[in-house]
């Protein structure tokens, strides 16, 4: 993992986050090995007594040794420093074991007294298990840290994606908000206070629906349609008879998950850059169908008679925003197109995966 390698100082601290009892569990296999190697001496009481002494000493050193190794990690020492310190420490502990062994020999009467030159002999039975334990402690801690790091990176990536999607979502609102406030201000200037109050209430409903807690990036088609109709109610008040709306939804699709606020920017686009520019009545058509296991959304609107040439900037931003959100949410598993059709209407077509694949994109928080 590149992130951990780049911060050797913190690396040790990460290793020390392993729960204290986990490395002690790693000592079980070593203890078993010591028991197995002691079995042949079962008949010989003197040799057996030494084996039991060394085993008990090993078990007694485990907790202090674990604490010491973790303290070295917490100090931020790297492998180069930790390795000799641990080798030296375990060697000294083995020497203590050896002195204890001589004490036992004197008590059992097999040795006349302490022989300090013999203290350095036969340390393998004590030293090797401790080295083995420190090594497995390090391996277990590294694996645990690696796992935590992977989870952290995955969470960071998901968080970045969520933030990006939220930013794209909020980019949509100001447009519509200022247009509506302007319409309300016109109603007030006209002394149409009842219409103004109605539009303020509708704007309140719409903002509540868009700002209040949707926990993920998707919600049910029924929610999206209700939200879109709340928006259309405001546009109908602004445009009156110039706006005609036709909606059709195939049966059984109301529960299908769709991206939050996917229809509103497209419908707003269709109205502001299409129908609102016309002198005569224009129709907005929203058709939602199920075809070959996919959810198809079609939005079509009439255009102004002179609407030939480049699309206005606002329209392009809205379309690009929806395209970017679909890309983030579904990757290659979607289709999105926006174009002028042969009959002179503007058409947007979206195909999304239906049912099972969608909920995995929901935000964990």
């Amino acid at each position: 993992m590149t992130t951990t390698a780049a911060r050797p100082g913190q690396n040790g601290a990460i290793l020390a986050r392993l729960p204290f009892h986990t490395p002690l569990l790693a000592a079980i296999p070593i203890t078993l090995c010591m028991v197995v190697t002691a079995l042949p001496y079962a008949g010989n009481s003197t040799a057996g007594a030494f084996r039991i002494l060394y085993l008990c000493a090993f078990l007694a050193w485990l907790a202090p040794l674990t604490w010491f190794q973790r303290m070295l990690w917490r100090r931020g020492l790297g492998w180069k420093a930790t390795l000799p310190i641990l080798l030296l420490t375990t060697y000294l502990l083995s020497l203590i074991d050896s002195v204890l062994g001589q004490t036992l020999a004197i008590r059992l009467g097999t040795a006349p007294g302490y022989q300090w030159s013999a203290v350095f002999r036969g340390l393998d039975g004590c030293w090797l298990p401790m080295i083995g334990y420190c090594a497995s402690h390090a391996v277990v801690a590294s694996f645990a840290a690696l796992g935590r790091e992977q989870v952290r990176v995955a969470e960071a990536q998901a968080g970045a994606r969520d933030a990006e999607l939220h930013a794209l979502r909020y980019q949509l609102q100001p447009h519509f908000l200022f247009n509506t406030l302007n319409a309300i201000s016109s109603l007030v200037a006209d002394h149409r206070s009842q219409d103004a109050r109605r539009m303020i209430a509708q704007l309140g409903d719409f903002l509540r629906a868009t700002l209040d807690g949707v926990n993920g990036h998707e919600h049910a088609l029924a929610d999206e349609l209700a939200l879109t109709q709340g928006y259309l109610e405001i546009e109908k008040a602004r445009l009156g008879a110039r706006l005609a709306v036709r909606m059709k939804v195939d049966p059984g699709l109301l529960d299908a998950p769709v991206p939050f606020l996917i229809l509103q920017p497209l419908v707003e686009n269709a109205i502001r850059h299409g129908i609102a520019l016309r002198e005569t009545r224009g129709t907005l058509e929203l058709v939602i169908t199920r075809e070959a296991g996919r959810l198809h959304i079609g939005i079509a609107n009439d255009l102004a008679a002179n609407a030939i040439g480049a699309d206005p900037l606002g329209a392009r931003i809205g379309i690009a925003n929806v395209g970017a959100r679909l890309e983030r949410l579904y990757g290659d598993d979607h289709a999105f197109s926006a174009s002028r059709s042969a009959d002179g209407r503007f058409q947007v077509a979206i195909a999304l995966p239906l049912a099972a694949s969608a909920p995995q994109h929901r935000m964990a928080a």
Partner: protein
Amino acid sequence: MMRVAVIDDEPLARSGVLARLRACPGIDVIAQYADGGSALRGLDADPPDLVFLDIDMPIMRGIDVLAALAPNRRPLAILLTAHEQFAVRAFALNALDYLLKPIDDERFAEAVARAQTAHRVKQGAPGAPHPSPELFLRTFMVRLGSRTVLVDAGDVAWIEADGDYTTLHAGGKQYLVRESLQRLARRLDPASFVRVHRSAIVRIDQVAELRALPNRDALLCLRDGTPVRASRTYIETLSAALGHSPAA
């Protein structure tokens, strides 16, 4: 006369409620309170029939005012809030209705009408007599250019408010009727038509799907695939109508 008190810490919010109440007949505003403490004392000393109560007031919140009153001294309550989350809890205290800020005039009028009905029931007065079926509209007179067309009520799938007028959706065609949805609603047979939203009436046998939304509203899908919003105010009537409809 129904005696009403208005409780909200914001003076402008109170005057908005008072202005709307002036348009309602049979209402007598007896008191206004700007905080929970004085409201509690006032309601206890001189109980009104109905209170408009803001939920998010500082120190003593609207819900606490209601909860502090003995249940038999609790007036009918219409709660005011900007946040839907509070409203759901309000129903635990048997609030009659809740209104979201900014207040919608039609929703306000509906809430007052509900309060008046509940008040009459509380006093044991009989409800309004049911109009006889002969009085209901069988056909709609619709102007198409210079001629007048008759549209049979049985052909109408749903009716949509269109400003001060209404649009009939019948047989895939749309007809403009020069009458408001409110007035039209009163003349329709409740056995076949039901109001589902401030801006929509549907024919009961045209409802194909109904899905509840998180905010207690619902979305209907008609047989022709048209999605229609249903607001929580009308859901009970709608469910009852769907349950009794021969088509359901």
